């Protein structure tokens, strides 16, 4: 049984916990405001809000219900467009109507839900309002009217100051009043921890599994990992950062530890999928999926992250870079799962950069991505880690390239040499994300981009002419 609150109604269901929340909402509860556009998290038409108590606060985040398992709704408040309707239009709806930010209307509930999520998220500012809808695709408006509506809303939210988020939102007609009692109602939900006797699938956020194996998931007995306490949390232990396997991209973005050690963190995170997906996608999911272009995988390969695996009985440690044996082939048994990820936090003399180019800059899969981690002593490279995605069958750690530049000083010619060594380590193929020739050129450019970004004072601009 799965127990949760759907809008203003307590729900207990014995339906398969692996069915998508989208199907449950639309076809079992007949709440048709939540739309189906793609069933792969790429359009946002099925966006819902997920409310849960975290750190003693009722927090709402957005999610694409097409990729969310019914079982992952356990103990939470699930909000569809119907659940934010009030008498007349709510503030977001009014802004959309006033600005003609809806044309055919099919994507509109998704946008309205996302932006309502912004209203109660605790964030403020126009940019954050736009971030909240960056996983929503509209084919009619060209987004300009949606931008105007977001302006209106962010101005309204800016008046909140220190007021309670939910109370303010209710007072300003952003959400219905029943939200104020949700916290208590969530606390009353029975906690059922039933682990299936035979586990056919382990599930994190579902952002990959539900794209690839949508039908199989519904009929599998699933071990839900997403909300497990021991798989969550980001901690610092001395100079080491430890993360649970179910930490999401959004958790990383919000982490004070990450923010203090990666000055451009938000810039990198903005290149990784969308707000909705970042709220759901787990770090271990990204690793285990073994996509050659996994953004976080590339990020943590350069940082030489370590994994702790368990099969339920014993534990073992391994380097992330040793996990990949071939295309979607892992050094891991069926029973094993990642429990913990750790890495040495970059110190004062460390430099880090992440680059990604895709057909569309945001909410797209990389043509090529790359990360670099350098430990510097003056202008000498003490040690280096360079990773690249989209240029081989697995996410690549460029070991030859990384070791070649160790102990050397940064110069235009060193970068040239590095680029040609990197070329010898990769084997890209032509596909929908680009031709082989392009991917080779692109990786060279991204390596150059690392150095130009990390050493803005060095006269490196000329290296781009030498291609």
């Amino acid at each position, binding site marked *: 049984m799965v127990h949760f609150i759907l809008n203003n109604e307590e729900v207990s269901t014995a339906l398969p916990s692996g069915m998508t929340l989208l199907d449950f909402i639309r076809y079992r509860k*007949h709440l*048709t*405001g*939540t*739309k*189906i*556009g793609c069933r*792969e998290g*790429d*359009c946002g*038409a099925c966006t819902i809000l997920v409310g849960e108590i975290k750190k003693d606060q009722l927090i709402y985040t957005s999610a694409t219900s097409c990729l969310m398992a019914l079982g992952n709704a356990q103990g939470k408040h699930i909000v*569809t*467009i*119907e659940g934010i*309707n009030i008498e007349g*239009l709510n503030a977001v*709806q009014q802004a*959309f*109507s006033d600005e*003609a930010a*809806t*044309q*055919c*209307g*099919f*994507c*509109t509930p998704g946008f*309205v839900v996302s932006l309502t999520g912004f209203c109660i998220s605790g964030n403020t500012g126009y940019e954050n309002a*736009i971030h909240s809808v*960056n996983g*929503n695709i*509209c*084919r*009619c*408006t*060209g*987004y300009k*009217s949606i*931008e105007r509506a977001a302006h209106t809303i962010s101005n309204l939210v800016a008046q909140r100051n220190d007021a309670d988020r939910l109370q303010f939102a209710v007072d300003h007609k952003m959400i219905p009043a029943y939200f104020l009692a949700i916290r208590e109602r969530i606390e009353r939900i029975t906690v059922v921890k039933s682990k299936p006797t035979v586990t056919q699938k382990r599930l994190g956020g579902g952002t990959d599994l539900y794209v690839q194996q949508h*039908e199989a998931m*519904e009929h599998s007995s699933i071990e839900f990992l997403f909300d497990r306490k021991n798989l969550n949390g980001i901690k610092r232990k001395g100079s080491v950062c430890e993360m649970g396997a179910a930490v999401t991209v959004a958790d990383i973005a919000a982490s004070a530890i990450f923010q203090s050690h990666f000055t451009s963190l938000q810039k990198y995170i903005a290149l990784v999928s969308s707000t909705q997906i970042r709220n759901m996608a787990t770090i271990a999911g990204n690793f285990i999926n073994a996509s050659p272009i996994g953004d976080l995988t590339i990020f943590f390969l350069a940082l030489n992250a370590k994994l702790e695996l368990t099969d339920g009985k014993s534990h073992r440690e391994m380097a992330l870079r040793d996990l990949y044996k071939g295309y979607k082939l892992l050094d891991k048994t069926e029973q094993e799962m990642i429990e913990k990820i750790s890495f040495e936090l970059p110190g004062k003399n460390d430099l880090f950069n992440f*680059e990604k*180019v*895709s*057909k*569309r*800059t945001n909410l*797209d899969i990389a043509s090529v991505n790359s990360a670099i981690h350098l430990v510097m002593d003056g202008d000498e490279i003490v040690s280096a880690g360079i990773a690249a995605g989209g240029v081989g069958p697995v996410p690549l750690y460029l070991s030859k390239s990384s070791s070649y530049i160790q102990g050397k000083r940064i110069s235009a010619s060193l970068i040239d040499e590095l680029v040609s060594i990197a070329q010898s380590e990769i084997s890209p193929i032509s596909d*929908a994300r*680009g031709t082989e*020739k*392009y991917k080779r*050129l*692109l990786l060279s*450019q*991204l390596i150059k981009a690392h150095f130009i970004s990390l050493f803005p004072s060095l006269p490196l*601009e*000329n290296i*781009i002419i030498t*291609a």
Partner: protein
Amino acid sequence: MTNIDAYTHVRGETVYLDDIPETAGTLYACVYGSPVAHGRIRQLDLSEALQLPGVVRIFTSKDIPGKNQIGGIVPDEPLLAENEVHYNGMPVALVVATSVETAQAAVKRIKIDIEPLPVITDPRVAQKNGSLLVPPRTFSLGDTTAAFTNCKYIVEGIAETNGQEHLYIETQGAYAIPGEHESIKLYSSTQGPTAVQRHAADVLGIPMHRIEVDVTRLGGGFGGKEDQATSWAIFCALAAMLLRKPVKYSLHRMEDMRMTGKRNPYSSDFKIGLDIDFTILAYEATFYQNGGAAADLSPAVLERTLFHCTNSYFVPNVKATAYSCRTNLPPNTAFRGFGGPQGMFVIEAAIAKAAEQIGVPASVIQQRNLIQTGDEFSYGQKAESEAVECWNKATSLYEMEKLKAEVENFNAANTLFKKGLSLMPICFGISFTKTLMNQARALVHVYTDGSIGISTGAVEMGQGVNTKMLQVAANIFSVDPAMIKVYSTNTYRIANTSPTAASAAADLNGKAVEIACEKIADRLKDVAAEILKCDRKNITINGQKVFLGKDATQLTWKELVMAAYVKRVSLSEHAHYATPGLHFDATIEKGHPFAYHVYGTAITTVTVDCLRGTYEIDAVRIVHDFGKSMNTIIDKGQIEGGLVQGIGWMTMEEIVYDAEGRLRSNALSTYKVPDIYSVPKLLDIHFLETSNDNLAIFRSKAVGEPPLMYGIGTFFALRNAVKAFNPASGIGYSAPMTPEKVLMGLYTSGND
């Protein structure tokens, strides 16, 4: 007035096809599409699929009671494959089951043995093999051969535009409910209810009057549901009739992308000749249109390519030939602009290439040749032009010289980033180019409580046509808009409709509504004159009150309506409108096919990251000829949305088929449309009110398709930025300008 549907849209209460409450016993359909692009069917094995519990029946072409034919212009497209398959995804069998999951699972169990035949995906190869959908057509004006001998500059080249996936967020779908007397009620997400009705009648072997097609609205269409919605509706109708059960089919996105056609890709040759003063003296173009495996709307799309092959310019000597080429891809189809953008891109490429070779900015050639009132298009119609006015307004209002200087200064100061600028004038003809389609009907009822209901042939798909219809009626009756409801588009109420396409729905249907309302209003005024015992000429209705001269009388709208009913005066009207003055003779390719043209000019500036090959669109500044807009907020939305769709086509939207004709960009993860971050940072639209009389409804010019073509400017702005970084770049005239093409263009040199 904002869109009348906004209220239910924002609350998630609008009912799209998949939201219609289902009748008990509804079955679900799923199509089995050919796994290969070309071949002969040796054997189709349904046995395993049929064994799956919940599978009700699987239909093949043998089960069709009527004709197995859905071709609109040319009867060359079977609903279900018989002996051969012509594209990957071509429907071969139709599974009907008790649940969507079962239907999908059954499709996976169908086995087929196909003898492979050669696959052609390139239109030029098809043309060489003589594989054409219809005979080629040529538009000509003057004598290009003679004119080229007088040209100071002659430039030749190749230009290509890729296809474009419509990506309406609501996928294709239909729901059929069988009725009495062999009738079918057919809910369809279609732009062309009559096309659905006509072809369904043919396939089912029953008369059209038994098929009620009902369309409330679409979750986006863009041309993709003009002809391509038909087959899904017929699948449902066929199964519903043969099983006597309601049958529904709402396509999965990947089915939709794989099995439906897209904007026609084109590969074209051009030759342009200019005088010493940059006057274009001659232009020749040969268009190779990738039509896909069946004609669908491609011949009509091809025709519009020819109509718009000289865009917004007057060229005295033109010869344009177009081949509609049969390939092994899904039948390509209508998409906003309907061949016009493809034709306009080629002459813009020709001008850009000529400018580059001569060493002047393209804008110099563009401006020199803008079409003026009285100039003749290659098809014989004389222009009533606003081209110069739009251009001049844009360059002055937006201070073109200053913008140019800003770009030049930026480029001189920066290595890692370069900016590019372009101007894009547009000219788009309004009317269906098939003259007979320029007709429409409206049915208006006034009920005894004074409320009003309107039915037309127009389909609401986000463009706001229902709002405009309502405005027409509200204006003529002078009543509160809340008194009016616009009904679904239904073939039982309005017969023989033209599809909602060609930007013409508001004009055609709006005029019909206008006529119907005026006739009722006239009768009401007669009644009022009788009641008030005064001269009929002095009576007006204003704000739901009857006026005598300047003075309001005691008689209200509601009372007047009731009085008319009591006097047995008709409160309903069915009106017909046909655009006057249209004619076109295809034997000589001359005539007057368009009611009017829409003009405009866009100035686009972009910034290219020369390290990564990525780019941003800084600004698009537009002066657009609206005539006199009847709804500025809706029309502005059309310009913004059309532009961004055009930018998508020119930049990131890349359809990839492999050599076997398999769609590689088959999902939203591999086919990218603009998101909120990729739109122009600044988008300025100036409403140019033009005073020439036109045939538009309330003189408010059609606005659906023209703005898409402003997006072409982005291609040339990006190209200019690439050239600023690498003047020797080998970057050609092949859209879309993906980050890949930009990066390769930045770092490779050679001939284009």
